[in-house]
């Protein structure tokens, strides 16, 4: 037995079992066995040899995989095996004898509505839906509706023309659209007579946001908070790496000699999870009451990496017996998580994490309970960034 078959035997034992999926594709009843993670597009292409359905972005953006499911266009990349059980699917290979699709194919050819043809299967699924659903061929509406199908060749002119022609042919042939009741156009602004508003329910007081900026590819989140303890006492706690780590949600310190350390940070951001393993360096300046934790780490399988630095400075507070802590987190995420291109959400989370850090510091110094963050789907990516804290070089 070679190494490869050993691996696959092991994987097969762990992998979730394939489930039977029964579906009707282009009028034929089919039954396939597929693991739950199998996309509808893969069932069509790999199990049923229906390769007209194309896969490109697999994020629901490009529209190449659009097929008709139960009479409605849907993304075949975002529909997984169990969800297609019992579905009726129509792909480009089907549509036999369909009056609208026959006209669309002819109109696409006539209007040069395709060049390389990669987007065309998805484009025709969307076009079929528009040709059946739109009451009139309004160009703006058609263009808006086509925003979910990317074409990089034609500039859409031919595609819009083809759909417009087919809607006209449909009307001429007396085929009724299946249009839903029209959406009433919003009334022109008329204003209203002043009135006394009823107070809205107040959400829990939000913690004020910290400051966020980006600099040379680094995201920097800064937040200050006041602790009801004298600066010396706060610094005495903060100059100990173990204490700082305890206050960081999701962080766990492994080995340390006081300066260098290893550890991990578990990240949960909505459905996103990661666990960064890494190492770093801790430095404390007693005279200035400043500390920095720098580090970097990788998550499981090395799919993402994060580098970062947490700096904190403790100063006397405005009133006696209090102190003010300025915390700043600089971080950079690369790899898969970095592809999650929503920087403001990530910095929002990191800010939330710093707020948790502040709350934990306060609780720790007061001898109260730490906020338990594990198991709550909250403190998320923040931790990824925090992970940043814990890794360097």
């Amino acid at each position, binding site marked *: 037995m070679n190494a490869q078959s050993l691996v696959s035997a092991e994987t097969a034992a762990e992998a*979730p079992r394939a489930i039977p999926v029964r579906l009707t594709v282009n009028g034929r009843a089919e039954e396939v066995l597929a693991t739950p993670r199998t996309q509808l597009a893969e069932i069509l292409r790999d199990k049923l040899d229906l390769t007209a359905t194309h896969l490109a972005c697999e994020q629901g953006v490009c529209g190449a995989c659009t097929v008709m499911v139960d009479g409605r266009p849907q993304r075949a990349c975002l529909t997984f095996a*169990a969800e297609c059980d019992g579905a009726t699917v129509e792909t480009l290979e089907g549509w036999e004898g369909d009056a609208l699709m026959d006209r669309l194919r002819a109109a696409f050819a006539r209007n040069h509505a395709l060049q390389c043809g990669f987007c065309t299967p998805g484009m025709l699924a*969307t076009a079929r839906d528009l040709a059946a659903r739109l009451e009139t061929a309004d160009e703006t509406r058609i263009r808006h509706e086509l925003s*979910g199908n990317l074409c990089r060749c034609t500039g859409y002119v031919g595609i819009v023309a083809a759909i417009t022609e087919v809607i006209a042919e449909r009307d001429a042939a007396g085929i009724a659209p299946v249009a839903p009741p029209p959406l009433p156009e*919003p009334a022109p602004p008329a204003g*209203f007579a002043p009135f006394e508003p009823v107070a809205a329910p107040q*959400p829990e007081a939000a913690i004020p946001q910290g400051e966020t900026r980006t600099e040379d590819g680094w995201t920097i989140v800064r937040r200050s908070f006041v602790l009801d303890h004298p600066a010396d006492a706060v610094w005495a706690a903060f100059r100990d790496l173990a204490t700082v780590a305890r206050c960081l949600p999701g962080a766990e310190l492994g080995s340390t000699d006081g300066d260098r350390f290893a550890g991990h940070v578990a990240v949960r951001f909505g459905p996103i999870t990661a666990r960064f393993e890494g190492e770093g360096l801790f430095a404390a300046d007693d005279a200035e009451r400043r500390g920095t934790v720098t580090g970097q780490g990788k998550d499981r399988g090395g799919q993402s990496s994060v580098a970062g630095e947490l700096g904190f400075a403790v100063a006397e507070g405005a009133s006696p017996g209090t102190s003010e802590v300025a915390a700043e987190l600089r971080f950079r995420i690369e790899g898969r998580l970095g592809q999650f291109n929503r920087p403001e959400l990530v910095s929002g989370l990191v800010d939330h994490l710093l707020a948790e850090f502040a709350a934990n510091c306060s609780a720790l110094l007061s001898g109260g309970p730490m906020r338990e963050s594990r*198991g709550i789907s909250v403190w998320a990516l923040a931790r990824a960034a925090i992970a940043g804290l814990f890794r360097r070089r």
Partner: protein
Amino acid sequence: MKPAAFDHLSPESPAAAAAMLSEGTRILAGGQSLGPMLNLRLARPERLAGLSALAQLRDIREERGRIILGAGVTHARIEDGDSPVALPPMLRHVARGIAYRAVRNRGTVGGSLAHADPAADWVTALTAMGAEVVLLSGSGAERRVALPGFVRGAYRTALGPQEIISAVEIPAAMRDALWGYHKLCRKVGEFADAIGAIAVHPASGHLRLVAGATGGAPLVLSGLGDGIARSGAHPGPAALRSALAAALPGADRVKLQLLATALDRAIAKVIPA
């Protein structure tokens, strides 16, 4: 890319779905937000409990002066007004602006709220409409949370570890509301850069002005909103900008300008300039 392996669970009821939730088990509603995260392997759940077979989550009805939308109602059904009770025009209009038709055909209102992406439409629009979210626990207990407050931040909600959203309740008065909704996106169907929403129903004293896509929870501008109700006048762009700057001290100038513009245009749809 393909998702990491996961197992599929088929709960027999909404409460059973809530009871299945655990560290490694997540809900799969329409999958139009979770799906991309699975395909990118940003999310790697061990198990997904699918809700699409649960017909009771697809109900739309009206009771006690409230329109009750099942959590599993798709955006496309709302857009089409495919409902036994009339839906408020604002609801249908907002639904049409969500992503793309192929996404709207699967994506659900409950899934969108539970995902709580700040740039998504429902979290902001339903906040303006004064909606409440019905949360169902694994034991079958229900509780209601008003929309300002349900969303706590990006991807953070009031949902407990073993709770799902079973429905959204909207005051039936919203059918007659004056409303404005304006979304700024770089491309039609993309995540919004800024959202402005206002819903006004003088008879019930309702005026809610909300800024969405702030990066965090939708921002209810109650001071400005009360002023608009009492004066019946557009506060003007300068007042919008300063209220936003005060409420979002960390936000950059571009964000503030986009939000002020979206709010300005939303209000202008209700109050003539």
